[in-house]
């Protein structure tokens, strides 16, 4: 009787342990997926209101602890301070662009994805951000002309950005990674990685080619 009960409790404990590890793993996976989706939505929303020909890209690479080189590209595009202020538009209806949105991952082992709103008052016409390469510090608050800083993720493994002029789309490959999770059913430590590959369309690109 005690043996059976002991086996039962042991079995339940094993199941609980396995399930708990499985939950942790699932939570990590889903958390990463959710984070990835949230970043993707934020980027899509921001870029959709911009102009394709204002994209600036600064390619950067990071060598990880295991010697792998990964891309940590910074990029920016224009936006507007107030979409419902008539003064922010030309008589033709085109926006008088006055902000730059900068996205960049920092270069720690696990990079932070920074989104910064930069004051570009007086820009007016759709032009790429000329100072992008010099205004993407590892300490985001030390950057110039920053109006707002948001950290979208602290788990960036890599960020690749490419302009596809032939389709006027911005191609993004973003990989997030959480480190040191435990695999269900074993004591092995594993990293969880999620990748999103997507293209962004700037709906204020005018005229379109």
């Amino acid at each position, binding site marked *: 009787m005690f043996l059976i009960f002991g086996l039962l409790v042991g079995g*339940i404990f094993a199941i609980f342990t396995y399930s708990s590890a499985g939950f942790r793993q699932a939570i990590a996976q*889903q958390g990463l997926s959710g984070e990835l*989706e949230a970043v993707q939505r934020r980027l899509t929303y921001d870029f959709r209101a911009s102009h394709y020909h204002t994209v600036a890209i600064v390619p950067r690479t990071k060598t990880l602890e295991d010697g792998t080189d990964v891309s940590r590209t910074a990029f920016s595009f224009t936006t507007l301070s107030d*979409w419902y202020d008539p003064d922010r538009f030309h*008589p033709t209806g085109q926006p008088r662009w006055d902000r730059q949105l900068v996205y960049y991952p920092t270069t720690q082992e696990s990079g932070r994805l920074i989104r910064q709103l930069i004051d570009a008052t007086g820009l007016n016409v759709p032009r790429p951000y000329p100072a992008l390469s010099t205004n993407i510090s590892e300490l985001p608050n030390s950057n110039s002309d920053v109006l707002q800083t948001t950290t979208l993720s602290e788990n960036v493994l890599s960020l690749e950005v490419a302009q596809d002029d032939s389709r*006027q789309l911005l191609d993004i490959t973003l990989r997030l990674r959480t480190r040191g999770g435990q695999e269900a059913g074993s004591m092995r430590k594993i990293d969880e990685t999620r990748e999103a590959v997507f293209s962004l369309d700037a709906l204020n690109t*005018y005229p379109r080619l």
Partner: protein
Amino acid sequence: MLTMMVTAFVMVLLGAFISLNQGQINLMSSSQTGDALERASQTVYEYCFSRLEHNKYWGAQPFDENRKDLGVQSVMVVEEINGTTRIKGETNLDDAAFEVLIRNNISGETPNAQGVPAHACLLDIEVSRGGLKSKRRIQLNTAPLYDASAVASDGMVIDTDKLVVASKDPQRNVIRSKQDLHLKGTTDLEFQPAPNSAEQGILWSGKDIILGNESLRMSSDARESAAETGGRFVDNSRTDYNVHDLKREEINIAKYTRVMGDGIYVFGTSDVTYSTGPLTTTTQRVSTLERREHKLVDGKATIGDVKEMWYYGDALPDDWVADEQWITTDGNSDWAFARRVNSRHFQLYEGDELIKADLSASRLEISANVDVQVKGDFGIFSEDPSITPSLAFIDQEGMGDRGSLSSDGEILIEGVVTGTGNLIANGSVSLYPNVIDVETDTQSDLSIYSGKNVRIAPPDNWTGQGTLSFKGLVYAKENVELYHQNKVRVEGAIVAREGHLRMTAPVVELVYNPAYLDTIVRELPDAQVRLERAVWIP
């Protein structure tokens, strides 16, 4: 007991799972609603876009009743709201409610009181579902018929030392080739955008852009040269670009029509011999305009016998002939039906002010408000090298319509075209200007429509200098070819819809000017309009 324990354990696990993933579940639910709002918003936008393209006056005035659009009820329920310029409804797929405020100024020539720019329409789209709302403001602009100074479907070759790509439109400074775009021998490429332009200019190609002999795709040197111009070079583009297939019926012609005989109209002189006594004859030289038989194949003319003739001879005795008679002329003619005219500047058809000829200037004149129709080929020519014939569209005050010359066959003019007008032909249009400017009057413009090819080049062996300057829309269903010894300047747009564009000159200037595009094309029927999205406000 065991069952209860297992059940309780499973419940605990399930509860923990739900609790731990609550954020994820909420995010998923929110994402689904967001996606549904996005789809609904897009559906509503496309509905409004379609309605406006089919009726540019839609929503320009308040609706006069509550009216449902039954044509789209499988997709959505839409109702125009009486006394407003709003519509409301629901989309079937996503079960989202929407309301749209339409501020339509498409027909306006100036910004309206609501701040909507001329030729534009603002749509304020609000969509809601499950307590979430989404707002969009979208500006639609009237789209230009052609958006580049040069457009070709089957390749573009510009053989020039210097190419200037310029524009009068701050939004656009582009040349487009759906196949290769080849700038042959171009050492100097210069972009001249309109003031307040956001960028210098764009060369766009569906295939390769070739600078000299080097493809931009293959040669880093070529890419460096391109970068130095400050322009953008978009090669191997995968965006769809449709070159509008302009139909002859779409061309704006004057309300009055006249018919002219077909043939080649030749300005010159003829020697007329007549009796002055029983045994004596006298020969007088008279100025003539002859309508000749011809063979015209893609711009190459073979001139034949005289079919009709107008002549002026002030030295001829008044009673020499009757007003109309058959006379012989020199050269290769036989007999022709001739009309003696009393002045060098005369009506081609008596009593009709709309078509005249001037023998002093060797000029055929078409009034501004008439479309002269030729049931066959039409040409203007001179066999005398000292004579430069011309076709003039006379722009008289108070005449709103452009003059035009419409031919069922080909048009060939070896001479000058002046004034504001259209040359329209089912076949090829060939211009061989033998003086400096095709277009000497900077206030006017000339547009060309050809159902086949357009060829503009000085006559063979011509050695004159100056600029081949051209204003208007040059449209060929097939190929366009322009040649000059010195400089070619085209302001407006050149379109080779299915064929190639070839230009050869030491200097080529292509200036995009949308003002010249609309003049040749009549408004679309039934209040239709072409629109494009210009601004998207989140």
